[in-house]
């Protein structure tokens, strides 16, 4: 058999392809030639380093993987400030592959906070001082002034007297503002089911509600609805999906 140089012997060791005779030669060099020993040991350290660092990375990925239907453990992980900044940068839309390899931990609360903004009043424009202070106006003034508790009560009263569908939509947003996401969910669902005019908006807020409640799978389901049509928040939905996947 052809004689191997030292480098080939080391390669052969890692490939597991050395013959008995070559193994003896390897052992002999290892004992007598310090350069050979150093070369080999560096490569062995490299191998260990690559293996261990990958394991560490994989365990991080697994620790941040949500298991559906398992509710006893909260999956919320608190991000360090620089990770928050990083996640905002990621929202701009690096490819999902890159996100996958460098991705910070999913923090649903943080993602929620960076995506949620109350929907503006588009159904009942208010010109202050001129209009009658009817119930609807009072409700939307409260909403626009961020007096959400008051707004909710007015929307509720209004809803009893008036069957405009959008009332429950704004009531739901007000509930979200007050951190009552569980109560907001059925309102948004029923508004969507009724095919309200602001349906796509409602889907977005329902997705955010699920996010806040840490129901990631349900959240993704709603986001997918938005991501597959061109319109309201399509891009935001895609970006958020990329974050969650």
């Amino acid at each position, binding site marked *: 058999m052809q004689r191997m140089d030292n*480098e*080939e012997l080391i*390669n052969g060791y*890692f*490939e597991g*392809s050395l013959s008995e005779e070559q193994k003896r030669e390897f052992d002999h060099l290892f004992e007598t030639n310090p350069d050979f020993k150093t070369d080999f040991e*560096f*490569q062995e*350290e*490299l*191998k*260990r*380093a*690559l*293996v*261990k*660092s*990958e*394991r*560490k990375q*994989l*365990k991080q*990925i*697994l*620790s941040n*993987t*949500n*298991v*559906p*239907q*398992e509710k006893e453990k909260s999956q919320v992980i608190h991000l360090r400030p620089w990770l928050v900044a990083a996640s905002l940068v990621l929202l701009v839309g690096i490819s999902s592959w890159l996100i*996958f390899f460098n991705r910070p931990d999913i923090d649903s609360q943080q993602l929620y906070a960076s995506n949620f903004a109350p929907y503006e009043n588009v159904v009942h424009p208010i010109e202050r001082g001129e209009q009658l202070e009817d119930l609807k106006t009072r409700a939307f003034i409260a909403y626009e002034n961020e007096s959400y508790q008051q707004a909710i009560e007015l929307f509720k009263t209004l809803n009893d007297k008036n069957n405009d569908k959008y009332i429950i939509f704004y009531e739901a947003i007000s509930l979200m503002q007050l951190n009552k996401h569980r109560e907001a969910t059925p309102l948004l669902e029923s508004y969507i089911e009724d095919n309200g005019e602001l349906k796509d908006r409602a889907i977005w807020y329902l997705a955010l509600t699920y996010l806040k409640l840490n129901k990631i799978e349900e959240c993704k389901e709603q986001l997918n609805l938005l991501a597959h049509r061109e319109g309201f928040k399509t891009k935001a939905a895609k970006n958020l999906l990329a974050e969650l996947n």
Partner: protein
Amino acid sequence: MKDQHIISQMKQRDRNALKEVYKGYKIEFFKFASRYTSDTDLLEDIFQDAIIVLYENALTGKLDELKSSLKTYLFSTGKFMIFKKFRDTKEIATDETYIFDQSEIVVINDVYEDQGPNEYQQKIIENFKKLGDKCREILELFYLKGLKLEEIMSVQGYENKNVVKSQKSRCLKSLKELTHAKNG
């Protein structure tokens, strides 16, 4: 989830395959393993380690002709680790138990005992990340995936084995220089 599909995804280093296994078997594994211990942190750790063993053995082709289901393999790995933890040798054989060969046991023990990269290894990794794409690829294929130089040649479309050999040698040299320059 089809076992062979997951194994081939793992061979491509597709991390989604690991997530799928994690999501697919976690609840069942915890139920299965709860008869040995009720320490859920320990179980979480062992379950993740078992998935990594599955992954590493898939990566190096050891599961190409897997004789059991993936689930049996995974659960047996977990059980092996639990017994190791409690030094409990009774009740080794049950229907869930897969018979590992020596090289598989080496991987299980290695994953089980892994405390993470030491300082020097971390330094190597930091410098490894500074290498060019081609270098990182060739070194990962050789040292991490365990491909032979000849296999790298055909996978990556190099002209001949010597080109791969000298490319790898150059990459290794740069990495060594980077790592040791910082020492001085």
